[in-house]
């Protein structure tokens, strides 16, 4: 049996020796012997996670003022847990594994001579980023705060907006080497009990070497691993997470990650944002329709261009066709290869701009977009229409950022298929994407709900958004 799984001893020296053997080499490990009520004790903590000042002010000085004496260690532990005013956890910690877990969580441990149980004192003081505005997910109206890396802080951000007893925040420890914590948040009145149970069971069964972000869970929650559509949605905004909780969804927070995962997630949610509900229904509806159009353009626009020029010129109006044909005649590559190479180049520029240090990322963009683009056209390597279409598709991709990966992958597939088989290949790709979306059933729900099959719900809060009074009425009718 490993040492840390063993039961603790009654001897203070032995218990202290055990902890010293584990953490003694670490610079942030702090221990101090002291006497409380006539009993020898030892306080241990990590200085970066727990504050000695807090410990002194909140616990030790209080104990000193009380001036009580105890017969033995067990009596002191009992007093601290039940009668004292110091901020101690209510349960004694008898297992060494629990000690390690509490220390890692930033609590201070009080080991007591003659007692096998330690007392955990809440003296956490971890360095943390303050709540700031989110980098992505731009919104003009509504709350402007974002999740941070602190799990407890994130839970509190949620609870601050969700002020009912229905919010449940279950904290679990993942089966990872680092024993990372994650939290399952849901509204017990609105979330389907079987879905919560299914998510809980699946998350509990996940074995990972490391868990740095909630996205790591995504592939485990997918039913069809071949499906490219995401099984979950993500947000860094507590307000969005809160809105999803109200819809009966489950929010998963992971310690150390500012990104919350939302399950089950539907296709239409990628086209929604908080501003939709702040602005007027007509404008919000228009913006949503534009986003659907942008997604279609991002995925199928370049393929349609390739198909039109290579196989079906009748698609293009005669006046435009003459110009396109002239531009194509001046370039050496066939439209499919031309479009593929330009799309690839744009992706490389984007990736370089994203990964490069901020000081040079602007240079990368300028070199990529202006110099390479301009010179490629001047040299006759690519035509202006191809460049225009590829750029339009790339910009359209950014209108639905949560489907960025899918847009890029589908776009390349569409260009290839349309370039090889023309109308048939284009149809094949459209059907592939549609079938993928239709075949995805996150936790037994229709991924295309409420868009398909088309019904009243699709027009209430799907393709467009209805007015608030109707949305509220529908919400009241919902079980």
């Amino acid at each position, binding site marked *: 049996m490993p040492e840390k799984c063993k039961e603790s001893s009654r001897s203070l020296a032995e218990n202290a020796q055990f902890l010293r053997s584990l953490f003694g080499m670490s610079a942030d490990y702090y221990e101090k012997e002291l006497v409380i009520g006539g009993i020898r004790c030892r306080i241990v903590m990590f200085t970066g996670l727990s504050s000695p000042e807090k410990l002194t002010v909140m616990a030790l000085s209080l104990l000193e003022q009380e001036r009580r004496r105890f017969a033995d260690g067990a009596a002191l532990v009992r007093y601290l847990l039940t009668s004292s005013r110091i901020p101690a956890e209510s349960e004694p910690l008898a297992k060494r594994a629990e000690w390690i877990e509490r220390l890692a969580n930033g609590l201070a441990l009080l080991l007591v001579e003659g007692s096998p149980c330690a007392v955990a004192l809440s003296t956490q003081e971890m360095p943390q980023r303050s709540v700031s505005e989110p980098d992505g997910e731009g919104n003009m109206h509504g709350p402007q705060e974002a999740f941070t890396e602190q799990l407890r802080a994130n839970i509190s951000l949620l609870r601050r907006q969700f002020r009912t007893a229905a919010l449940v925040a279950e904290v679990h420890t993942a089966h990872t080497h680092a024993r990372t914590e994650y939290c399952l948040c849901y509204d017990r009145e609105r979330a389907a009990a079987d879905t919560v149970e299914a998510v809980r069971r699946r998350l509990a069964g996940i074995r990972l070497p490391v868990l740095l972000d909630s996205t790591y869970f995504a592939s485990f929650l997918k039913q069809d691993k071949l499906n490219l559509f995401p099984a979950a949605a993500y947000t860094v905004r507590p307000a969005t997470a809160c809105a999803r909780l109200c819809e009966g969804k489950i929010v998963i927070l992971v310690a150390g990650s500012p990104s919350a995962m939302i399950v089950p997630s539907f296709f239409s949610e990628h086209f929604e944002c908080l501003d939709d509900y702040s602005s007027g229904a007509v404008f919000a509806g228009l913006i949503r329709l534009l986003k659907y159009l942008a997604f279609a353009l991002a995925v199928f626009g370049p393929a349609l261009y390739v198909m039109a020029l290579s*196989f079906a010129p009748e698609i293009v109006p005669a006046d435009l066709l003459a110009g396109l044909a002239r531009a194509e005649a001046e370039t050496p590559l066939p439209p499919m290869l031309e479009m593929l190479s330009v799309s690839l180049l744009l992706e490389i520029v984007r990736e370089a701009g994203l990964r490069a240090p901020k000081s040079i990322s602007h240079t990368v963009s300028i070199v990529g977009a202006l110099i390479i683009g301009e010179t490629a056209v001047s040299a006759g390597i690519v035509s202006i229409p191809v460049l225009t279409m590829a750029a339009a598709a790339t910009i359209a991709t950014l209108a639905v950022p949560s489907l960025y990966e899918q847009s890029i992958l589908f776009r390349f597939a569409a260009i290839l298929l349309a370039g090889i088989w023309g*109308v*048939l*290949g284009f149809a094949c790709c459209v*059907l*592939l994407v*549609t079938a993928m979306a239709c075949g995805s059933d996150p936790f037994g729900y229709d991924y*295309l709900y409420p868009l*398909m099959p088309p019904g009243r719900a699709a027009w209430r809060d799907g393709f467009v958004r209805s007015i608030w009074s109707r949305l509220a009425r529908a919400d009241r009718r919902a079980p």
Partner: protein
Amino acid sequence: MKREKPDLFAALLISLMTNLLLGDGAGYWARLGLLSFPACAAALAGVAWLFARSWRQVEPLRPVRWLWLALLTGAAALELLRLWQLLCGVYPGSLTLLGVCLAALLPVLYLRRVSAIAQTANVLLTLSLPAGLILIASVAGGLRVSNLQTPACTAAAWGQAAAAQMVVYPELLMPALWPDHDKRGPHTAARLAGIGLAVSAGLQLVLELYFGAALPWQENPVHTAARAGTFLLFRRLEWLQLALWCMMVSVKLALYLYAGVRLLGGQGCKSENNAVGIKRLPVYFLLVVSLCFCWRQTDPERLFAAQNRLTAVFAAAVIAGGGFLWLCRSQKNC
């Protein structure tokens, strides 16, 4: 919304519509067709319902199941051949038969879940509505009421129209294979036959308004109309219709695969939604492609007519056999 039991009605309808869109016309005049439509729809629904009742009796007989499986595989190959022929006519030299088979069967990879077939068919059905409206709008200038034919309402003409409408497509019989068919009653058959024939008669009416007396001589009247139509800026919009038809064929192939799996005893799967699986796809692909290559020299329309006759004979045999078995069992019970 929870996905409880996927309804394949839309997929069956799409599959039925494919028979009309890729073929060389319904073979009747709209006036007679519209008049005989209620009786024919009722008769077809009756056949489908009787078949479903009889199928329960003959289902345990393995040769019958294999026979239907062979019919379905042949029908799938035939559909690909018809599509290939159509596409070769539009884009000569750009597509091989293998390419058409690959492109049409590739999406089946993602249509292996029953819910995916059902929902994709819903999407296609929704898309077919604006596509149909665009088709009508694009030929609107050429639609003439004077083109409507007024054939004499003789018994022979009625018979001809009824015979053209009374085609027993495999899709009408397929609901008998679905696991919960017994609970649904005759509604599915009635709706399927009714809507299928209504679409056929409606399409025939539009085509007759456009082509007039020349309609019977058109090789693929729907495609010819789509090719001739102009809409706003666009001179030809046939690609839109072709793309939609290609997708419909893929859904049809996926539906046939699911029906085949049911015939092979797919009930043993953990959940019905995953009954098709990915393992059977290569065998299906190989079978269908082999048949396509065997039949590539034959006229698909002749094969299609033969397939329809065979399906009708098969349905009649199953109804007769099922009835006979039911009588025998009733006698034993007495």
